[in-house]
């Protein structure tokens, strides 16, 4: 792996075709394999363990022409379809959303510390979501579809405020971005807490949701999240090239013929949509959007055309892994996954910072 790492091989001349070929293929293989393995583990692990081979058999037995001998208890079917798979899918989608939006925000602000959690977008989306929930807890389909829309609005307003506060001339320096994020997210979190305290009956579920425990089970949240995520992620994945050009700064990007304002608007909208959807159904989960893009950049280079899709996949992998830890480490108690991502993510980020001082990878 070391050989393909552009950071480490930076000084030399990497081999022409061979290097290029493996550099293009391996990340997808690693990330894809990681996602499949973690998804299977996530579905397998729980109070009732379902062996991975049984999972495959259950899935295959659904196919019309598959002749598979049923040698497992029928409760496995119910557990897998009603509980495990929707949970696994929601966690994977949430991780993907956070990974992609983190990468996009970092590219947009040209700032390695941008992430939906740190710049306050997650709390802004959370506030809007809680506001909507306090009106009526989402037991209906309509509720499920309105929450992400409200959260999206909240996210856009927050990102606008943070951007205006953080901007110094034409740049958004790391320090002002963090300060603006802290200020805005403190304010929105306080409002969120206030609203939750006022609506006492649903307090526990709301708090659990806010810490990243999914308050809702089954397929409805997955189905409600899918259209928003599909649109947002597709747009972000196609914006890799403009994001690359934006890394040279607005002025150069404009001189290279990029319609900077238009692209920035589309990137903000798409990444906020994706982050808001994640918040709507899985609460506020920190550090995934921060750590995952760095990890991908460190392993496979800074090209946003690959960075965005890879951060999407790896985001799913990392959140699935964190969720497995959250569900098993104090079993039978289940921790909110947000606690696990913070406990693992914060030290990892400190390590990244240290490393960043030695090898400037940004």
């Amino acid at each position, binding site marked *: 792996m070391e050989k393909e790492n552009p950071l480490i091989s930076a000084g030399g001349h990497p081999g022409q075709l061979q290097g290029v070929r493996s550099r293009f293929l391996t990340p997808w293989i690693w990330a894809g394999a990681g996602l499949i393995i973690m998804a299977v583990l996530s579905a397998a692990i729980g109070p009732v363990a379902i062996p991975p081979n049984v999972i495959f058999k259950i899935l295959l037995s659904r196919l019309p022409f598959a002749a598979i001998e049923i040698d497992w208890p029928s409760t496995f079917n119910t557990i897998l379809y009603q509980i495990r798979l929707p949970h696994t899918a929601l966690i994977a989608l949430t991780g993907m959303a956070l990974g992609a939006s983190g990468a996009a925000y970092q590219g947009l602000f040209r700032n390695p510390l941008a992430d939906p959690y740190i710049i306050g977008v997650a709390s802004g989306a959370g506030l809007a979501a809680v506001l909507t929930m306090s009106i009526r807890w989402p037991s209906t389909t309509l509720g499920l579809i309105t929450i992400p829309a409200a959260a999206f609005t909240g996210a856009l307003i927050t990102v606008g405020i943070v951007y205006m506060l953080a901007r110094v001339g034409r740049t958004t320096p790391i320090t002002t971005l963090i300060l603006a994020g802290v200020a805005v997210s403190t304010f929105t979190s306080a409002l969120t807490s206030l609203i939750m305290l006022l609506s006492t009956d649903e307090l526990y579920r709301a708090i659990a949701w806010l810490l990243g425990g999914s308050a809702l089970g089954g397929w409805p949240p997955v189905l409600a999240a899918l259209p928003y995520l599909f649109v947002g992620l597709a747009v972000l994945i*196609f914006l890799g090239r403009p994001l690359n050009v934006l*890394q040279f700064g607005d002025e150069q990007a*404009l*001189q290279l*013929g990029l319609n900077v304002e238009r692209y920035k608007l589309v990137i903000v909208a798409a990444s906020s949509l994706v982050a808001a959807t994640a918040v709507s159904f899985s609460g506020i989960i920190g550090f995934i959007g921060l750590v995952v893009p760095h990890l991908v950049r460190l392993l496979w280079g*800074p*090209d946003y055309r690959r960075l965005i899709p890879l951060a999407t996949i790896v985001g799913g992998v990392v959140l699935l892994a964190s969720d497995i830890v959250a569900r098993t480490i104090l079993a039978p108690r289940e921790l909110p996954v947000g606690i696990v991502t913070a406990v693992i993510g914060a030290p990892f980020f400190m390590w990244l910072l240290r490393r960043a001082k030695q090898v400037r990878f*940004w």
Partner: protein
Amino acid sequence: MIARLRFDNTTIGYGQKPVLHSISLAVLPGEVLGIVGPNGVGKSTLIKAASGILPPLEGRIFINNNDLSRLSPSERARNLAVVPQARQLPEAFTARDVVLMGRTPYLGWLAGESEVDHRIADEVMSKTATAHLADRQVGQLSGGEQQRVLIARALAQTPSVLLLDEPTAHLDLKHQDEVLKLVRELALKEDIAVVITLHDLNLVARFSDRVALLSNGRVRDVGDPAQVLTPDELGEVYGVEIHVSSHPTHGSPLVLS
């Protein structure tokens, strides 16, 4: 011959505050126009206006007889390229990645780079002697190499006008020479009109066909380096006593304070 770039009685500035008044200049194909003047006189402002990112307060700027303000960013970037100072480049991109970004104005929303784009990148990299740097990260390159990569990126836009703002600011003597020789040669070979700002008057004298001397928000004089870079003119503009002799090998004016 149609001027590639023409300022037509243009006033340039920020907000409502003019920095440069009624500028009239024209640059022909293959010509290098050097812009000189004391610090803060508005050399960079002139380049910004010519690049289209700073709309003029009054008057118009033309690229190949097209009103600059009526062109979209991509139309602009196909006609005109800017070579910025090699500072704060996103350092993990390879030189080839950077050069290919010069093809941005030719690529649509979803299009990737085609074979044509790659061929053009190869060509401009060999013209700028950067082909051997293709797979290196730009952060690992020397200042002169970075500057040549940025020139290659600008050439990948296949422009008819090339603007350079202090391209030698952070380079040592050898690399200054290399970069300016390259620019000079490209102007002639590719029939590109070049506008370059330099604070080193001797470099301007050696590498420009004509010089525009800016002073007090106006173009004080335009013409042959030997006519413009005179002790009287320069002494008045820069406010110090100036001697001008002749370069022992190049014969261009040699300016000493």
